[in-house]
């Protein structure tokens, strides 16, 4: 059954088929897995949520939302190491042996037998609920694997604190009520435990530069996916954190500007404009920065600025699918 689902996943249009990125992430998993490397088959999946999962047959899914959130190779390794920890400790097999879980598993499989594809597998990833002790054991094993592979284990604690920031930003957000944290140890406890582990295993690298180099070609697409989620508060928390790490990177500034513009609450247009202007100063700013600026200026009745911004967009992206629409805005605004 697992093999059949893996075959479906291999054919899925949601699979990120870039061989360079795939081999890179597979290499990280292999570095962590050591002798178990041949068992681990990594699949990069285009889904804008934080998740990685590993099935008992060695099929490992890594979602694009997780890769967007990782600041460096060590942070991705922390999550992959945790999943490999579950695999090596045979937690999923143990859970499936449990009679109750077997029933749940059957229902999960019947669900994704029906809907098929990645959603089913995603449900599976989230569906096998480990005990909190199993999660703690996977954290410990993950940290050991990270250390053995030469990564800075302190990054594993940062992964969870960063995720917590996003969940807390959600309106009415109580992370303890989130299904993810409901099945995992409390985030603060986990963070402290991981920090203690890191102190006992000092040293290691984050490989931040390599991570940025390997993922930069995908960043805009992953950011667009994040924007489309429409979860403005969570996205602002994520992007503010990313901007703090890479203040010169125009893609993060542009997308945060878009989030503000689309939310359009009090002060959002000012914030959007500030982000667009900062993004425009960066090297290789996306042309859509000028489209966003045009819309904000237009909303603020600053017509000459709106015209100039829209014109800049049309000049920078003459073949964009929305250029006829933007040209109609220019006509409305007058030449």
């Amino acid at each position, binding site marked *: 059954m697992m093999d059949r689902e893996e075959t479906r996943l291999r054919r899925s*249009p949601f699979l990120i088929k870039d061989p360079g990125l795939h081999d890179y992430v597979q290499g990280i998993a292999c570095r962590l897995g050591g002798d178990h490397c041949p068992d681990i088959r990594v699949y990069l999946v285009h889904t804008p949520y934080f998740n990685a999962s590993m099935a008992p047959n060695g099929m490992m899914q890594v979602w694009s939302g997780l890769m967007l959130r990782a600041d460096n190779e060590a942070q991705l390794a922390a999550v992959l190491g945790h999943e490999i920890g579950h695999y090596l400790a045979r937690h999923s097999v143990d859970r499936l042996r449990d009679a109750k879980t077997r029933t749940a598993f059957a229902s999960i499989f019947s669900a994704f037998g029906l809907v*098929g594809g990645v959603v089913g597998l995603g449900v599976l990833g989230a569906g096998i609920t480990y005990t909190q002790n199993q999660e703690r054991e996977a954290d410990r094993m993950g940290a050991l694997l990270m250390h053995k592979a030469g990564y800075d284990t302190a990054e594993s604690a940062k992964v969870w604190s960063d995720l917590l920031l996003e969940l807390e930003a*959600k309106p*009415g957000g109580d992370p303890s009520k989130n299904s993810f944290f409901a099945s995992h140890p409390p985030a603060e406890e986990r963070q402290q435990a991981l920090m203690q582990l890191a102190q006992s295993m000092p040293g290691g690298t984050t490989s931040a530069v390599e991570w940025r180099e390997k993922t930069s070609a995908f960043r805009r697409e992953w950011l667009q996916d994040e924007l489309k989620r429409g979860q403005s508060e969570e996205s602002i928390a994520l992007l503010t954190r990313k901007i703090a790490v890479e203040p010169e990177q125009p893609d993060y500034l542009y997308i945060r500007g878009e989030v503000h513009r689309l939310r359009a609450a009090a002060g959002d247009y000012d914030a959007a404009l500030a982000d667009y202007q900062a993004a425009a100063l960066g090297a290789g700013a996306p042309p859509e920065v000028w489209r966003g600026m045009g819309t904000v200026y237009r909303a603020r*009745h600053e017509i000459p600025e709106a015209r100039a911004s829209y014109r800049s967009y049309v000049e920078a992206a003459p073949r964009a699918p929305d250029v006829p629409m933007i040209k109609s805005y220019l006509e409305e605004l007058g030449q």
Partner: protein
Amino acid sequence: MKKYLLLPFVLWLAGCVTPVMTMQSGEQPVGDRLVIALDGSWNRIKTTGPAQQWTMEGLPIDDLMIYSGLKDGEAIHAISGSAKPFVFHSVMLPDEIISLFEGMLTRDGSTFQLTKSEPATFGGVKGYHFEFKLVRKVDSVELTGLGYGAVSNGELFSVVYVAPRITFFARHQGRVENMVRGAQIKGIQPATVVPASLSPS
């Protein structure tokens, strides 16, 4: 004994049946202010969301969403779960309204690619036309879609049609385009080329 075993199954089956109405050819009012002209019959599925949901082939094969008079501050989809809804505001520009539909259609993780966005007339009001490709998350089916719409008196009127790229979209595209050509929004207030809100203050 058998009939007692059968009863829950029959009740379950009854619960699965979605109420469907046939929308006949000719002029059909949709809500209070929109009239559309049909050149063939459609199936209307009873739903609870803000849009009427019609189909030719049956859901989830093809899906026509018709919005008639959605008001400022209303979500463009039925609200469920804790995720923030996509909400229409009457001051939105056409590309911002199109972004709303994009957000709605990708809530389940489907991928959306805008292929065209241009000004168009809908129901006698200046509005928008857009086309897109969608890969549906639930079954990885590649879909093609189109949308038309306009804002009149602060209310949103729009149709969005989506169907599998292979066979089905082309089969019904003309029918939807004809429906759009024959659409009429009633009670239109005189429009200006440049909205008053754009005039320099």
